[in-house]
């Protein structure tokens, strides 16, 4: 039997072609590549919540024609919403506050519902000013801001104490 890869034909016949690929350098290269990528890989997906803070010389957010929403976060986790200068907004249309959870945590599931409902009704309102109290938890504030971002209210400011 004559095998093209064997390279050992019968005596007097021409040699078969050796068409095998040398995979060893290719495997070396892939191994180096994998090692590099594993060492430099970041397995935790870091993100950031962007906040645009107004400085003293800029006009206040409340003077914008489409209005704004001021959010007070109290020590006991209660979130109070205060719409300002919003066209067509009637007081009492929306619940004005969302009660906190124990101990002093924000009820984030209810705030998400409130924000989604409000953003659905007043989609032109993009400006939010968050006014947290001293003992408001950073984790709750970040999630609250993320909920506003999710509802396309992306011009968020945080008031310092």
């Amino acid at each position, binding site marked *: *039997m004559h*095998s*093209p*890869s064997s390279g050992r034909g019968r005596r007097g016949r021409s040699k078969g072609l050796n*068409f*095998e*690929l*040398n*995979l*060893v350098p*290719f*495997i070396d290269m*892939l*191994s180096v*590549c*994998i090692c590099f*990528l*594993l060492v*430099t*890989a*970041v397995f*935790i*997906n*870091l*993100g*950031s*919540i*962007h*906040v*645009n*803070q*107004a*400085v003293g010389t800029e006009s206040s957010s409340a003077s914008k024609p489409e209005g704004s929403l001021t959010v007070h976060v109290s020590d006991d986790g209660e979130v109070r919403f205060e719409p300002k200068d919003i066209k067509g907004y009637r007081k009492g249309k929306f619940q004005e506050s969302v009660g906190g959870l124990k101990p002093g945590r924000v009820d984030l599931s209810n705030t998400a519902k409130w924000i989604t409902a409000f953003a659905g009704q007043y989609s032109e309102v993009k400006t939010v000013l968050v006014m*947290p*109290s*001293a*003992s*408001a*938890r*950073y*984790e709750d*504030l*970040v*999630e609250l*801001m*993320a*909920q506003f*971002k*999710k509802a396309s209210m992306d011009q968020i400011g*945080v008031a*310092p*104490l």
Partner: protein
Amino acid sequence: MLRTSSLLEPSHLSSALAGQSRIKPSGGRHGRVVVASLMLTSLVDAFSILVIFLIMNHAADQEMLNIGDKLTLPKASASQLIQKGVVIRLENGKVHLDDAVVSLGSLADQLKAVSTSDKENGLIIVADRSLDYAELSPIILMGSSAGFTKYKFAVIQKD
């Protein structure tokens, strides 16, 4: 019987080691030659898939943040990719400005000394999720007085 053989028949594709792995190279005419062959194709396939997966997950334009061992970042659902900026880390009551510990008193001056182009990139705040806003507020106040208008709160992206 004449056997027709295809070039692509697997038995013809011997490995690179086939030529070198003769157990008895000086054997006689009828000497038995043992060929040890490895199937490298599946290994190369697995490596290739692994490399493609790692390259796809490799975020080259992401800012590398040094997060302390004792810090747990808050999780947030609607976050953006973290980009360049001046990094302030609050860890164990100490303030780190670009990995150097600074006192709260000198922070305002150091932030003012940051170049205008870096100020435009914004201030990245890395803080523990259980922190009170009272500890964070002076940083925001000093940043604002130094001319920073963008703040980026570092979070872990939630699905």
